[in-house]
């Protein structure tokens, strides 16, 4: 008791817990789509823990990288579990993040006052992509090597600064051991460190503005006499227990994949990457991982390499403009009109189509389809200011529905 007081006089742990858990009010009508934020944190934790153990056995040299991974998989007790967890964890992370972003698009969580929260989230998404890309290179299989080459060539295609920038990142004129060790440093130190910092800031921003909800109305507009939102419930215990249920459901699916189909038909670990990297043999087709496939499809859909790279970059950064492109008087899709709904539906279909097309060979038909999907993808953002204004929106209720 006195120790507790001694600590709290010097470090306000109790105040912090009160402020951010016991007296942090979240809307009581949050549905299952709101689980994906805490699940993303769970995934980050899983990746960091399993990653630390992989780090103990992995050797980042061209000679030993592939062998050290196979050694871990076979001769280290539970090494297979760590490696499959880390590999499946990356895919699970992206399923969760894409659902998290979809939730934001659906309920207008990017709208005022949550613009900065949204921008920080976009930065996090791009960081996780960089993290997964550098991690993908480390086993030094065929696809690792050739994926590194493809992305480095994109950097190299930038006019003027491209080639020196490419050499700076690669640490060499070709993809080599220097590249492997740089990517190792990025994957293990640089990106995770920045990621943790930005996650903290993302949460700070969230706790400042509060969660949005499926009705898209501000619970802070309806306070009781004590200044507590009438439609809010304390985060702890109500959402801690709900998030634990979600975490257990997630872990059941996650471990079912790890124990029964850890490569997930080549989507989590593709078969080409079970061949050690060979700079002399180009694989018949170079495929990205599924979660980066949409952007790769956009890159390939544009006939010019530099313009393709710009389109790919734009497909990520265009999300940053969402808070200002959406001019609807309501936030949530529940009260938005038919045009907004069709528009979001087409966007989701185009994104999923690009994902499938990015994994398929670039046949003439597939290229045409990828171009159509790319136009639909960008069309969603470009038409948003008009569609959201000229639409038959409904009036949201004053209080949340449950």
């Amino acid at each position, binding site marked *: 008791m006195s120790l507790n007081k001694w600590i709290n006089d010097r470090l306000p742990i109790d105040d912090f817990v009160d402020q951010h858990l016991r007296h942090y009010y979240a809307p*009581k009508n949050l549905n299952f789509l709101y689980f994906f934020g805490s699940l993303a944190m769970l995934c980050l934790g899983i990746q960091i823990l399993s990653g630390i153990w992989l780090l103990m056995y992995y050797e980042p040299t061209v000679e030993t990288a592939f*062998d050290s991974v*196979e*050694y871990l*998989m*076979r*001769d280290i007790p539970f090494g*297979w*579990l760590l490696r*499959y967890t880390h590999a499946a964890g990356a895919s699970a992370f992206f399923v969760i993040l894409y659902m998290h972003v979809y939730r934001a698009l659906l309920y207008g969580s990017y709208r005022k006052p949550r613009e900065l929260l949204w921008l920080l989230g976009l930065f996090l998404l791009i960081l996780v992509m960089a993290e997964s890309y550098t991690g993908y290179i480390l086993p030094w299989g065929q696809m690792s090597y050739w994926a590194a080459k493809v992305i480095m060539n994109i950097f190299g295609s930038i006019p003027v600064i491209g080639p020196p920038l490419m050499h700076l990142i690669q640490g060499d004129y070709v993809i080599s051991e220097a590249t492997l060790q740089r990517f190792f440093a990025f994957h293990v130190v640089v990106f995770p460190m920045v990621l943790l910092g930005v996650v903290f800031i993302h949460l700070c921003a969230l706790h400042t503005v509060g969660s949005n909800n499926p009705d898209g109305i501000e619970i802070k507009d309806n306070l009781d006499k004590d200044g507590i939102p009438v439609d809010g*419930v304390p985060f702890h*215990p*109500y959402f801690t*227990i*709900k998030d*634990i*249920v979600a975490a*257990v*459901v997630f*872990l*059941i699916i996650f*471990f*079912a994949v*790890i*124990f*029964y189909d*850890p*490569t997930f038909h080549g989507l989590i670990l593709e*078969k*080409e990457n*079970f*061949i050690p990297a060979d700079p002399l043999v180009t694989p018949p087709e170079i495929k990205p991982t599924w979660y980066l496939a949409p952007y790769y499809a956009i890159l390939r859909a544009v006939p010019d390499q530099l313009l393709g790279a710009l389109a790919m970059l734009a497909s990520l950064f265009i999300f940053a403009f969402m808070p200002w492109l959406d001019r609807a008087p309501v936030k949530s899709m529940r009260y938005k009109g038919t045009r907004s709904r069709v528009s979001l539906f087409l966007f989701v*279909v185009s994104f999923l*189509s690009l994902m*499938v*097309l990015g994994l*398929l*060979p670039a*046949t003439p*038909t*597939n290229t045409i*389809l990828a171009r*159509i999907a790319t136009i639909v993808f960008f069309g969603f953002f470009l038409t948003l200011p008009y569609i959201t204004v000229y639409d038959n929106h409904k009036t949201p209720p004053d209080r949340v529905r*449950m």
Partner: protein
Amino acid sequence: MAFNHWMILLFSVWANITWAHGESLVELDHAPLNIENRDQLLRGAKHFQQVCLTCHSMHYLRYDDITQEAGIIKERMPVWDDLSWGGRPPPDLSLIVKRRTADWLYTFLRAYYIDDTRPTGVNNLVWPNTSMPNPFISRQGTQQLLISEAHLHDSKGKYRWSQVLKLDRPGQMSGEEFDQYIDDIVNYLVYAADPSYLKREAYGPWVIGYLLILLFFVARLSMSYWDDVKRKHHMK
């Protein structure tokens, strides 16, 4: 308009999945897998040691008891120079099932036929013009192709290997014995590609069972908390 495009998209996805068999000229047989059967794995490992180990290594399975018991030890594994065999030395087979599939190997190893135009004297329906000679000729016997090569290429994937190959000189084994022999090897190779399989299958039910029980309790706890919130909400 848009609908048609999505139908084309769906069709192209389906077409790419169904036609993505790779280079095989025949439909692949389904390999009967029975990784839990240690006797069969050991049999396969012993066949591997007698035949495959002449040219192929099993580099990543160094400390495995089945492998050791079959006599597949590091000292006996062949080491090839990168430039030997015309630049394509026999690959290590530890991960061959990940690169190909069990079905592919099970069909490939039985689909050799006599072809005098090839340096090895044999050709293969699953991997046309392979540089790998048929190591099982004395066991399987020799097979002749019943239809012309041109017809075979036109009808890609329509036949099974047994429909277009005829045994013209029987080997030491009967057809069933040879199928079992190859299946033993394929089972061992499947095991070799991912020895964690047996452990995963053993741990899986316990981990998932534990989580299901945990789910029951945390879901009940969550519902008891949220019942209050819902009741209050609907009282207003």
